[in-house]
């Protein structure tokens, strides 16, 4: 806990870090407290009152179905966060396991895992996304799956590299000589030691997932209507651009500010935790 406070203090020590942290807090706050922060039910239709201009009742006006734009933006934050956090958690677990496995396997097995990572990276991710959506239908869960699959190689490569540098460390040699089994070594020594860089990487991948989600939703392949993801809001706004430019500009801005905030925060976090890590992309 103390360490966390220290890291956060360090993050906020720089202007970009502080700004990033502030944006992250606002987005997370909006995401968690969406039902209270929002002024309306984001899915409540009022077709007779479509494209209402911003007013006291509707701070940012309404969309093509008369839904309150401000409330939809706020709920969009929850969707973005749920998708981002679960996709990254999934990719983190899968990538770390595969990465550790690769580092421990005989060369041929290792090569196989690395080629798998390369296959995923070289494959156009949109094709993967389209195919997955075509098979299982669009849903929030599928967006999570797609983002997780795309990001797994990120974590896998970093985890493997970390394990390789650790493996020859004297304390591990000693453990092995003392007869510790693989699970013990992994859980007691490897994981705690490689978690730092991986968590930094995770925080830097949050904007990547948000962008993937928005892109898929923009193509109509993302979350299922009526959920108010930012990508859906941008798509709706773009389709009705000539009725009102407010929705598209406001939702693009929300998306841009959020990704910017998380990027700034992630980088400040990286500098605070371990200045040597470079983002692997």
């Amino acid at each position, binding site marked *: 806990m103390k360490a966390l406070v220290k890291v956060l203090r360090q993050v906020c020590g720089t202007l970009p870090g502080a700004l990033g942290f502030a944006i992250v807090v606002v987005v997370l706050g909006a995401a968690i407290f969406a039902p209270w922060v929002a002024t309306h039910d984001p*899915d*409540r*239709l009022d*077709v*007779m009152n*479509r494209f209402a201009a911003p007013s006291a009742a509707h701070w940012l006006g309404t969309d*093509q*179905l008369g839904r309150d734009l401000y409330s939809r933006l706020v709920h969009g934050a929850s969707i973005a966060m749920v998708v981002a956090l679960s996709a990254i958690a999934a990719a983190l677990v899968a990538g770390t396991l595969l990465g550790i496995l690769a580092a421990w396997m005989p060369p041929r097995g290792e090569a196989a895992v690395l080629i798998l990572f390369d296959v995923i990276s070289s494959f156009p991710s949109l094709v993967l996304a*389209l195919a997955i*959506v*075509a098979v299982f*239908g*669009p849903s929030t869960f599928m967006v999570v799956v797609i983002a997780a699959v795309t990001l797994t190689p990120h974590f896998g490569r970093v985890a493997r590299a970390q394990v390789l540098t650790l493996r020859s460390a004297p304390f591990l040699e000693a453990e092995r000589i003392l007869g510790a089994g693989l699970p013990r070594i992994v859980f007691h020594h490897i994981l705690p030691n490689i978690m730092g860089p991986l968590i930094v990487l995770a925080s830097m991948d949050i904007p990547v997932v948000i962008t993937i989600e928005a892109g898929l939703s923009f193509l*109509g*392949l993302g979350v*299922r*209507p*009526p959920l108010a993801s930012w990508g859906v809001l941008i798509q*709706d706004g*773009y*389709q*009705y*651009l*000539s*009725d009102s430019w407010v929705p598209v500009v406001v939702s693009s801005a929300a998306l841009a500010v959020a990704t910017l905030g998380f990027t700034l925060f992630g980088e400040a976090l990286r500098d605070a935790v371990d200045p040597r890590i470079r983002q692997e992309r």
Partner: protein
Amino acid sequence: MSIDIVRRQLLAGTAAAGLGGLALAARDASAQAGPRSNISVRVERDPEVIDPGFRTGPHDGNIIRVVYQRLLRHRVNSGDLEMDAAAEVTQTSPTIIDFRLKPGQMFTDGFGEMTAEDVKFSFERIGLEAAAGGRPSPYRGDWAGLERVEVTGQYTGRVVLARPNAGLMAIALGDVSGCIVSKRAVEQRGVEHNTRPVGSGPYALAALERQRGATLRASPTHAGGRPAFNEIAVRFIPDHRATELALRAGELDFAVLPPSVAEPLRTVPGLTLSEQPGLQYIWMGLNMEKAPLNDIRVRQAIRLGLDVDQMLLAGYNGRAPRLNALIPAPILGHWPQAPAYSRNVAEARRLLAEAGARNIRLKLLVLNQPAFQNMALVARALLQEIGVTVEVDARDAGGFWSAGRGDAGRDIEMYMSVFNGKLDPNFLMQWFVSSQIGTWNWQRFASPEFDSLAERALAELNPARRSALVIEAQQVMDRSAAFVWLTNNVSFLAHRSWLRPASVPGWLDWQYDGFAAA
């Protein structure tokens, strides 16, 4: 028995449709074309195949109709037929149509003069079973009942039917499936003929580029009048928004758009906007076999729980006319007294209670296009109030159109769909007969009564009697409560004010060769 029957019924249709502000344009208007000799028009889909037998949709069809000739064609801006390649077409009996070609109609690329042999080849390759190893045409249904085409002279021949087909003139002879190809060119070019077609029509295909579209150039060999524009660029722009921007920027002269995108163009100087009810029909279907929708009271409750007008407001800015039965007004057999159900929450709830259905959760399958998604979301909100929870399942085109086929179709609950219509009632009815279950009849609406009415209507050449049969068939559909009719769509047409577009009523079948300067 003559072509006049068909002509009269089509005329009646056009009168009912109204022409939505389109003035008739003279076909040979080159003198008035002014400085512009070329125009660019938008198509929503990439032109793929410029061969009548294997076209991939109406966007190909529009190009095909100007590249080739047919025996009869629709007059400019009319559903009425006139002679095209034929000098004479006579229906001598319900199953025999004689034709005589005009002499001197030349195919492009040196493929010579059109003969009755070419006509026979063109009709039979679509209308008859394909030879072993050959690819069958998907449009065989357009020629339903064709037995053979006989060649009786260089320019004369006879179409012989096995049974009468009242829709043949409008659907086959006068439309894309009746386009006449050069037998020699098709045999020589093989599959290449799809993209390097040889026709005798007013335009020749000058270029066909992937993802960019087609270029049409006035054909030097065409025997009829010269079209008003020397060159038409048919540009493929999938996105409505990009189309709107291109119109504003003056990069495009003509486009059909959905109301929400088109309406703001009204204020753009130099652009003219007009609207017309369409021939497409859009409805919400309920799977009659799937519980709890297999209980007619549940289906009735859903029909009463919806507010079609509100759905149309959300989907089409309220500009699309409401449809209350299958056949829209311009087509023979329209049922003007069809019940327009209005929302009745209390009655819907009572029906559900009576059916003993509680906590109903249903999936609503739609295309992932804005109009459908918006309507589905309104339907979801409306049905929530009668106690039905709806999950909207929006699919891309590939996923959507394959969802109801075969056994997968048993699992569909509710869906919203759109089919293209033609100016013939049987064309619209054919998808709802029992034999279409597992193919296109996703309601799994199995009514022997409807089947027999549809069959009798197809064979009935008297328009009044035919109309009565079609209306009766629609009453059967109405009683099933498996259909919630929404709209026959509305087309908004945006074009330069100096351009006069031309189309068969319904604005699906454009007549590029009839386009002229105002």
